[in-house]
């Protein structure tokens, strides 16, 4: 889908528009200003227009009904006026619309500081989240930016549909939204989009981020929302049945598909026997959680899991490991301490990591770290929390709440709206 000036365009029109994109964006930048209230009003109207009839649209995209209802509820919340106002205040500060006037310490300069949009944002979206392009563009609009989207190759059309509706609600937004579905191989066209942008917002894995870094000149800023890894850290006092059940619930409920899902568990030990004992103890808990969930995974996924678990056992000739296989889930106990993704879908790893090594072992993964579930005793909690934060972890929770979202939470440790604005300083002539 290609969208410009509020209209769906064909490939010929797209070529013409992209050819003159610098002219269109500079015209908008120089002649217009987008204030948050315009965007908030449009989003709120869009949120209120969402109804049960839209479930048909999601069903046509292959989204199961239950999940579809959840997405619509999420959209209603995330586009709602109160929520957007709350975000602006939390992320940019309560006086985000105000100018900050002051005189420098030595009174030689009187300045006005204020938040200002970056200008033009290029959103390179990934296909791993429904409506990602929509939410990314709304963040760009709230901060007054022009938004160009390079849709992912498997885009489902949901964002395009919603953004068209948004422009319908508020035609002033038409000059601030462009959607292009160039394939990732069309580096020439993507290069043009990069050239007109002040910043590129990249969603996706390491390879996507690396590819964008390679293509981008120092003139354009890159804002990366890459993939992350989350895990649990457990000490003996923290290994209660209750805390481990919470962790197991996160593993089976998210199927370990989210950045915040627990991929594996580090134990505060140097002994492999402790690891094996833990696996023996945790496996039935994990298995029970899956069983109680009463959700049978598709045959294709179960088959893939079996192949991967079996392959791990074959690979033990080079990467020593022991597979603990339950009726519905599995645990692989490794001798190494590398932070890695798991087989997923209820199959986690367990490794050794004495607390004095936390920073040394985890810090090399710096930008990949997200949530750590900490299962420990009260006395050690502060110390281990600090060690994990020093290593680069951005969120600490208990096992059950790893993927629990709360209003106004950061995105991987940052406020997106803050990243899409700059602070400008203007000298006041007195």
């Amino acid at each position, binding site marked *: 889908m290609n969208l410009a000036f509020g209209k769906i365009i064909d490939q010929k029109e797209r070529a013409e528009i992209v050819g003159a994109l610098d002219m269109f964006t500079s015209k908008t930048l120089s002649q217009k200003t987008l204030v948050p209230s315009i965007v908030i009003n449009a989003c709120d109207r869009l949120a209120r227009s969402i109804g049960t009839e839209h479930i048909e649209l999601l069903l046509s995209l292959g989204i199961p009904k239950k999940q579809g209802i959840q997405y619509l509820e999420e959209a209603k919340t995330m586009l709602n006026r109160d929520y957007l106002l709350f975000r602006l205040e939390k992320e940019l500060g309560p006086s985000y619309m105000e100018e900050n006037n002051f005189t420098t310490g030595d009174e030689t300069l009187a300045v006005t500081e204020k938040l200002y949009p970056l200008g033009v944002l290029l959103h390179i979206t990934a296909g791993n989240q429904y409506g990602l392009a929509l939410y990314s563009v709304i963040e760009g609009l709230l901060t007054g930016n022009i938004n160009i989207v390079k849709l992912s190759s498997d885009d489902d059309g949901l964002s395009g549909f919603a953004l068209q509706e948004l422009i319908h609600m508020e035609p002033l937004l038409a000059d601030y939204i462009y959607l292009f579905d160039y394939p*990732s191989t069309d*580096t020439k066209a993507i290069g043009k989009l990069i050239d007109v942008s002040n910043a590129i917002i990249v969603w996706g*894995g390491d*390879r996507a981020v690396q590819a*964008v870094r390679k293509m981008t000149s120092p003139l354009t800023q890159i804002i990366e929302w890459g993939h*992350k890894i989350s895990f649990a850290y457990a000490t003996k006092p923290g290994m209660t049945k209750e805390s481990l059940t919470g962790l197991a619930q996160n593993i089976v409920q998210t199927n370990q598909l989210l950045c915040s899902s627990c991929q594996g568990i580090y134990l505060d030990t140097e002994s492999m026997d402790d690891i094996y004992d833990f696996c023996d103890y945790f496996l039935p808990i994990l298995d029970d959680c899956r069983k109680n969930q009463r959700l049978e995974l598709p045959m294709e996924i179960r088959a893939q899991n079996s192949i991967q678990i*079996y*392959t791990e056992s*074959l*690979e033990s000739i080079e990467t020593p490991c022991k597979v603990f296989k339950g009726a519905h889930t599995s645990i692989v106990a490794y001798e190494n301490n590398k932070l890695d993704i798991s087989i997923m879908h209820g199959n986690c790893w367990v490794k050794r990591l004495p607390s004095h090594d936390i920073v040394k072992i985890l810090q090399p993964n710096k930008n990949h770290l997200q949530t750590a579930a900490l299962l420990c005793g009260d006395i050690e909690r502060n110390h281990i929390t600090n060690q994990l934060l020093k290593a680069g972890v951005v969120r600490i929770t208990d096992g059950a709440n790893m993927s629990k979202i709360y209003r106004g939470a950061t995105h991987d440790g940052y406020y997106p709206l803050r990243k899409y604005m700059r602070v400008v300083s203007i000298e006041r002539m007195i």
Partner: protein
Amino acid sequence: MYNRTKLFLHKNVYSKNTDDIFFGAVRENIEWHISHCVKYARLLETQGFTLQKLKSYEDIYRLPPIPTLFLKKHELFSMPLQKIHMQSTTSGTSGTPVKVGFDKSAMLLGLNMLRKTFFYHKMISAVPTNYIVLGYEPSTHNHMGAVRTAYAATLLAPPLHREYALKDTGTEYVLNEEGVLNALITYSKKPFPVRINGFPAYLYFLVEKLKQEKIRLSLHPKSLIFLGGGWKKFAAQKVDKQTLYKMAEEQLGIAEQRFHEFFGVVEHNVPYCDCKNHHFHVPVYSRVLIRDIHSLEPLPYGKPGLLNLITPLLKSMPLTSILTDDIAVLHRGEECGCGISAPYFEVLGRAGLQGIKTCAAGAGSMLEELK
């Protein structure tokens, strides 16, 4: 390797009485690999397998299969590389391509197997033929097994002309939609049969294009369509066999009986050609086991599970027993009704994460192709 030679020179492609030779060939093959590939020997050992466990034909299932996933990350060779000829690679659609090398004797026996298989299925003809290859043009920079197979299929009848859907420019492949359409129209006016070989998805796109352009052709009655490979990244557009055959019959004038399908796995090397009822019967050169998707234990006829292919063809690599990503079901040969009594399998799907949306690190990104 006496039994292997005997097996691959067997006069009948679908004979029922080859279990003893097959078992002998597998045992010899495993003995060879254990003594020539240290990594494979260790691998079998960690799975608790020893040669002593292979006492009779019924024990073949005990041999730990090697998953194709394992081969994407590890190389296993039972011969020095300089003795290995011709390397085919997998497409790498789902990750790293796997290189497969052949020993000289396997190449010769393999060629004989191909000749016999195609002869049995009446694919060999002396009538000069024009070809449309719905796949890649062979190139020095492409060693994919699918390319070799598609090219080899153009030698089954003397080729007059070949037109490729993916043309090689020397450095990359470009889609040759117009060239294929023009060639097809030209071929339809000639007094020679036409053979269309390649991926089913490409045939679908071709007949769709013909439909859009309102072109209905009536190709020579001896023309033939020979399809192989999955729909892979075009899975969303997949149509069932019967629909595709019907569509192609309408636009090309080729009757359903003239459609053949081929199943092959680069890591396994035995070709499976469909019978007149479009079923893949298991030839004497291999055995097929279906394994339970959880326990990986063998399943009886009619139960779906993971496809495990066994053949003692290669001495170069220990690929005797391969666990594929395919989910399949095995049926008794008699259930088919085509006259071949060997069991046949049906591919139902593929293990994997297709359609799953994940944001965990390492998950496929949409920009992976960008360099």
